[in-house]
């Protein structure tokens, strides 16, 4: 199990580095997919199976749209990939910096090394994420309504920002 946790964590960092080195847009979208998948793995290994399922379905659903959009918008015949030397150096540099920080600052037993959510809560008999979910519909009802309002607001914001179809400045990228 510990090897899986390390696999997920390393994959998370590598996926994020792919996004950060500024390759062609759809490689960045692909890197985000890797990050999302590996992040769900990390959450599972920390004891949050339902949370990771929700994250996987919702986030990857959104990422699919982003991937399709960026692939359609920036369909280059010769995409910039790791073939360019600068990208490779940048990638190695980023991963190296993260690795150095990990070796320097994360010692065994500091709490940052890894533990499951059930261990955090001690001798809890119920799984904490279901507990938290019921809390969300009970005492956290106000915040749930607030989140729904934010989603509605986001809809209006997006519609306002993109109105004007071909005359709107956000669509000026051809």
């Amino acid at each position, binding site marked *: 199990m510990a090897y899986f946790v390390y696999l997920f964590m390393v994959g998370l960092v590598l996926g994020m580095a792919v996004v950060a080195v500024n390759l062609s847009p759809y490689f960045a979208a692909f890197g985000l997919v890797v990050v999302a998948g590996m992040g769900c793995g990390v959450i599972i290994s920390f004891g949050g199976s339902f949370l990771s399922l929700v994250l996987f379905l919702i986030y990857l659903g959104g990422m699919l749209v982003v991937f399709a959009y960026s692939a359609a918008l920036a369909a280059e015949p010769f995409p910039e990939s790791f073939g360019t030397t600068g990208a490779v150096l940048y990638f190695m540099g980023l991963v190296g910096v993260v690795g150095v920080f990990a070796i320097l600052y994360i010692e065994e037993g500091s*709490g*940052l090394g890894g533990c499951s959510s059930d261990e955090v809560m001690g001798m809890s008999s119920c799984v904490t994420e279901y507990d938290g979910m019921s809390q969300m519909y009970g005492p956290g009802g106000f*915040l749930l309504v*607030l989140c729904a*309002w*934010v989603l509605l*607001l*986001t809809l*209006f*914001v997006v519609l*306002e*920002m993109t*109105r*004007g179809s071909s*005359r*709107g*400045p*956000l669509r*000026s990228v051809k």
Partner: protein
Amino acid sequence: MSPYILAILLFSLGLGTTITFSSTHWLLAWVGLEINTLAMLPLMAQNHHPRAVEAATKYFLIQASGAAVLLFAGVINAWLTGQWDIHQAAHPLPIAIITLALSLKLGLAPLHSWLPEVFQGLNLTTNLILATWQKLAPLALMLQIQPPHSSLLIFLGLMSTLGGGWGGLNQTQLRKILAYSSTAQLGWMILVVQFSPSLTTLAILVYVVTTSATFLTLKLNKATNINMLAISWAKAPALMALTPLVLLSLAGLPPMTGFMPKWLILQELSKQGLPATATITALTALLSLYYYLRLTYAMTLTMFPNNITSTPPWRLPSAQLTLPLAILALAAISLLPLTPAAMALVAL
């Protein structure tokens, strides 16, 4: 923009700041800041010309990264200390990250260079909201955290008064000058926030009044650069006699309201045993004074050689609402005698 959409956006703008004000939990404070940013974006891009959309995009990127860093620091804080309470955040690492994230959101030097660019792309009314209402929520969070070391906040404060003064020196665009002025004024607030939060509250209140009066004056004259300001005296001669006083109040000269926070902040810094910091801050205020004086000079103290037909516009009544400007300009000029009452109002 449809009035219904406008109502929803303005309501959410108020809601975001209110949520951040009333929250004791980092997650809710972050939610409030995000609502604020989201609701502001369509207001910024409502004219749909490329400069406004560019400014909105820059604003979105900066505010989103600031909010993400704030959330990251809140999570680190919860991980290290086991609670999410804003008042009890005591670990130095999250506190330092939160301070930098809020500085980015507020536009404090050295994280201020987005502010003039965003201001320059927007109209004066949106700038007014950006310079006053949008500063309140991050500043309310800044008031509540307790940094373990004073050096970071003093560094940010000194850099802001210096950078805000220095950046505005060579500008001819009024909106950029007012953006640098905003950075410089926020520097004063941040400098004193750990010694006397009530003085920071007083400073933001006075800044809101004086900068609103300035923005409304420029809006009345439809002036966005110094040349337009120089020929705008003919539109409202009485206002032109008052505006230098408003600008010098923003600069912090003695008989005006703007002197009140600067006076008390310098006094507080001296009381805390920081005479060198107080001296440097007072000297950097001279840099800001230079560009306020230049605006005053171009607007009132010289008469530009225009032909006689440009003078009649003052006979035409303006369609703009002038009552808020009248009240704010009077408050910006003449509230210094109310210093004891203002201190009692903001006493924490």
